[in-house]
């Protein structure tokens, strides 16, 4: 059984709450018309990015999706610059060129969110190829949804990674929804991880709303990959609490269905209940972390609001080296 020290438990809680509060703030300011474009929220799926990234260093890589704020935060990116990017400000990670769907922080190994569903598979696989060629002891992780597993890129990447025994971990966040379509109506398998067997790749299914289960499953994946045995497939079962994007009228499901998950299977509430019941953390510990997060979110928001937009003359910057 995995033993959790207080530092790691606090990190889990801190990261999950930080993602949740960040996303709630983004939602509020988007609905208020202050954030341009589109935003896709990670609310309800926080335990996955948190449980995975807790075991990674800045030299390990992640590839993210259009729903990428949570991965970015869990990988350790500065939320001030993340928030500024989402607001389209020049102090953002991408100087306002990317926005929510193209958030990235290369300084912590976050190689980018991707606006194309399934766009990250081959890129993460290539980063793993580089790791192997450079003889480094790192891993490349790609987050993706159930819907993305129907892209051809998924199948080409998994085959290549398995044939070349690359240090890459495919983390499927099965949130049940491919945009507005229930994935079971368009997907040949119930468990996306069943597809890994077709590529001679070991896999594991974890409860994506239980950070402990995600963490432990990822440890197993990491041990396999770091032993040089090639890629690993981790499927985290979860549920997308929010619409596909903020503003989605959600005509495809009932409010009751969503509310039930939110009340009964909320990863943050589940964590709180467990650590209090098992006397791992106290109410005061949790309260202190929540306060710390509140302050950091407030600072990030102020930073974003007070930052300048890019000048029109910056339009050609960073096109070519």
């Amino acid at each position, binding site marked *: 059984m995995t033993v959790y020290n207080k530092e790691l438990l606090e990190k889990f809680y801190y990261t999950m709450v930080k993602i949740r509060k960040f996303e709630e703030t983004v939602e509020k300011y988007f609905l208020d018309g202050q954030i341009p474009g589109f935003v896709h929220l990670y609310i309800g799926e926080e335990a996955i990015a948190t449980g995975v990234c807790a075991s990674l260093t800045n030299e390990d890589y992640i590839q993210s999706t259009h729903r990428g704020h949570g991965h970015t935060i869990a990988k350790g990116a500065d939320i001030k610059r993340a928030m500024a990017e989402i607001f389209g400000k020049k102090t953002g990670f991408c100087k306002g*060129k*990317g926005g929510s769907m193209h958030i990235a922080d*290369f300084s912590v190994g976050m*190689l980018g969110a991707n606006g194309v569903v399934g*766009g990250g598979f*081959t890129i993460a696989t*290539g980063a793993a*190829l580089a*790791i192997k060629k450079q003889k480094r002891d790192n891993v490349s992780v790609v987050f993706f949804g159930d819907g993305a597993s129907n892209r051809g*890129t998924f199948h080409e990447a998994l085959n290549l990674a398995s044939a070349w025994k690359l240090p890459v971990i495919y983390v499927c966040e099965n949130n049940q929804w491919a945009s507005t379509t229930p994935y079971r109506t368009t997907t040949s398998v119930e468990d996306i991880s069943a597809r890994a067997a077709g590529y001679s790749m070991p896999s594991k299914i974890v409860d994506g709303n239980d950070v402990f289960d995600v963490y432990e499953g990822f440890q197993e994946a990491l041990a396999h990959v770091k032993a040089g045995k090639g890629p690993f497939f981790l499927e985290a079962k979860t549920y997308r609490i929010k619409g596909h994007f903020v503003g989605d009228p959600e005509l495809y499901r009932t409010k009751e269905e969503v509310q039930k998950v939110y009340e009964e299977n909320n990863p943050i509430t589940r964590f709180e209940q467990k650590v209090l019941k098992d006397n791992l953390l106290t109410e005061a510990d949790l309260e202190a972390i929540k306060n710390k997060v509140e302050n950091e979110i407030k600072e990030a928001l102020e930073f974003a609001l007070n930052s300048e937009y890019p000048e029109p003359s910056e339009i050609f910057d960073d096109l070519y080296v």
Partner: protein
Amino acid sequence: MRQITFSQATLEAMAEEMRRDERIFVIGEDIVRQGGIFGQFKGLPDEFGDRIMDTPISETAIVGSCIGAALAGMRPVADMHFADFMGVAMDEIFNQMAKIRYMFGGQTTVPMVIRAPDGLSLSAAAQHSQSIEAWFMNIPGLKVVSPSNPEDAKGLLKAALRDDNPVIYFENKILYRESGPVPDGEVFVPIGKAKVVKEGKDITLISYSIGMKTAYEVEKLLEKDGIEAEIIDLRTLVPYDRDTILNSVKKTHRLAIVHEAVKQGGVGSEIAAFVAEEAIEYLDAPILRFGAPFTPVPFSPPLENEYRMKPNKIAEAIRKVIK
């Protein structure tokens, strides 16, 4: 000067740059055991071992994994087998490779090269014969080169391998076997520089890649009538050398562009529009564009031949605007 083939020139460029920079590696279909379907990788695996790797038939994964490796500090080369197969990897090329640096605010570079054998050859038909370079002129973030002779093939490939931007290197299948002079020692052709390969005063004739053979034939035909064509080998399509084009047109006052690719929406269309915008007052004749008809490449030899550039017809059309 020694004569080597275009194919040999690309091999020399690869070997020299791979010795110089350990981050360069090559992946593609049939390149280790077969040496590439046109022999353009022959011998490299002997010297460079697992830096030359055979891939599954997965063009999407070939280009995508090169992008990922480039982001993680390598300088990959993706061989596309046939340029036609770039369509399979198009999302990786235009949505990922071309945009990553810009979209992420300059946090990274994507130093990689896509090698793409193109052009008509031996009735290879609609899906193995195309010249698709014009597509990539419409995608900001890429550089595109298309050499016409062994010296430029070597020099431009070396430049592409040293460039920190993604570069698409079109190499014509017929040209592979053609020989030309290549100096010993370092050969480097900067990306973005066209070359006036023959001076003339009556018309500027612009081409690149296999089109240069036609341009030379046209020039000889015109010479018989006392018409002196100035020939420019464009060499780089993105960014194309605007200054060299304008300087020439201001001197000759006439312009024709020749390429094997489809005329409509082709490289010639861009250059014609550019010259019309920048220098129409210097022109004494309509701008002429010569390219393939607006059809897929047909199979049967008489049809394939109909698709090809016709020096006689081009010369005839040029004579008409000069008289």
